[in-house]
């Protein structure tokens, strides 16, 4: 069975290491915060100007001045720090944030990513996505492996307008985990019940299967 969104988030959470500063994008990446392994302490960055993002507030304690990059009401934690938007992207650019997790419409086998614009549809803007992908040290993409029509979203090259070049290091899709290497996608794990044949059939970009490929464990 392909993974659901929660399971994709759960698998990505295994990539978190103790002491990491992490930026989680909107959508599936946000769910990663729910599955941080026990004993792993990470600090979540919200690019509108907060390190140490806490959980949603209790009902009645929402504060319009305290939101995350998805404009949701949130809280701080002991040790949180607030700053302006220039510093927020400055720390990402300077490589201080260890990991960025974001969604994508397409990823190419050289690590190019497209996630901000579909020609012919209303363009809402790139927000912080271009800054994050251009400069972040380590980028993991959470995405569905295919579109609704079944077309692969892991491609030889992106067909949609590019957000950033050669920046994605790893993809966790509903079918498996893929490292992005100089030799294209390398499948290192498959979702329980998903076959290598299915992964091969649904991956349009260059793909190799790791010798030690294994079933994903949660």
């Amino acid at each position: 069975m392909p993974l659901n969104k929660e399971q994709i988030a759960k698998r990505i959470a295994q990539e978190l290491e103790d002491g990491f500063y992490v930026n989680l994008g909107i959508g599936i990446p946000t769910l990663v915060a729910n599955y941080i392994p026990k004993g792993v302490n990470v600090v979540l960055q919200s690019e509108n100007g907060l390190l140490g993002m806490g959980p949603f507030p209790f009902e009645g304690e929402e504060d319009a001045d305290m939101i995350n990059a998805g404009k949701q009401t949130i809280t701080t934690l002991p040790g949180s720090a607030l700053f302006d938007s220039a510093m927020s992207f400055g720390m990402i650019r300077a490589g201080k944030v260890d990991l960025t997790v974001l969604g994508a419409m397409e990823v190419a086998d050289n690590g190019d990513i497209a996630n901000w614009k579909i020609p012919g549809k209303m363009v809402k803007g790139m927000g912080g996505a271009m800054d994050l992908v251009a400069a972040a040290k380590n980028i993991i993409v959470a995405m569905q492996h295919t579109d609704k029509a079944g077309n692969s979203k892991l491609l030889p090259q992106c067909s949609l307008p590019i957000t950033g070049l050669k920046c994605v290091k790893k993809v966790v899709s509903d079918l498996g985990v893929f490292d992005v290497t100089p030799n294209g996608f390398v499948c290192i794990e498959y979702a329980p019940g998903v076959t290598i044949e299915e992964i091969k059939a649904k991956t349009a970009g260059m793909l190799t299967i790791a010798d030690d490929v294994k079933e994903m464990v949660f």
Partner: protein
Amino acid sequence: MNKVVANAEEAIKDIESGATLMLGGFGLCGIPENCITAIVKKGINNLTCISNNAGVDDFGIGLMLQTKQVKKMISSYVGENAEFERQLLSGELEVELIPQGTLATRCMASGYGMPAVYLLAGVGTEVANGKETRNFNGKDYLMEYAFDADFAIVKAWKGDTMGNLIFKDTARNFNPLMAMAGKITIAEVEELVQPGDLDPNFIHTPGVYVHRIFQGVNYEKRIEQRTTRKPQA
């Protein structure tokens, strides 16, 4: 050194049609509500607005769009506004989309007296079209110019009569950066105090950057996404 003006109407009285304005805020968080209302009332138009977002239909910069006062928006994300979409598709409104960090840094550059900065964001994308690039240590960077705005309009939590400002929580966002960047900077504050009432150690924007300040009224502080958790049983 008293920079206090009576209210929003007085603070914005010399903003004319065709001006370029910076407006602080991220989403509806930390937006200069009083000045936006006053601009709508004044009825000036053909404005170029530099702001991360364009408000929602009935709040924030959305109010200035309803009255067709905005000629051009320079933003990073404009997805929450149906009237914006309508004007964009009909060609009434021009929009320039800029990566969020680039937007912030172009404000910062202006306030720091730097004509331009080199940034990675947008390399290899359509954002790079027409821009000068330069290679540092094997990587290409885009040259991005500092913004040049006639007025910067910001919202702070506390400010003193000399224009020193403190922002609250994530309502800081673009506000201190834009405050540094306006030829004329207008600050509306929730609490206007006397010099000495604010600890100099905790000033975010030194008053040198601020030209006019006033005590705002009737803040709505609308929440876009009200998310909560249940109390633990």
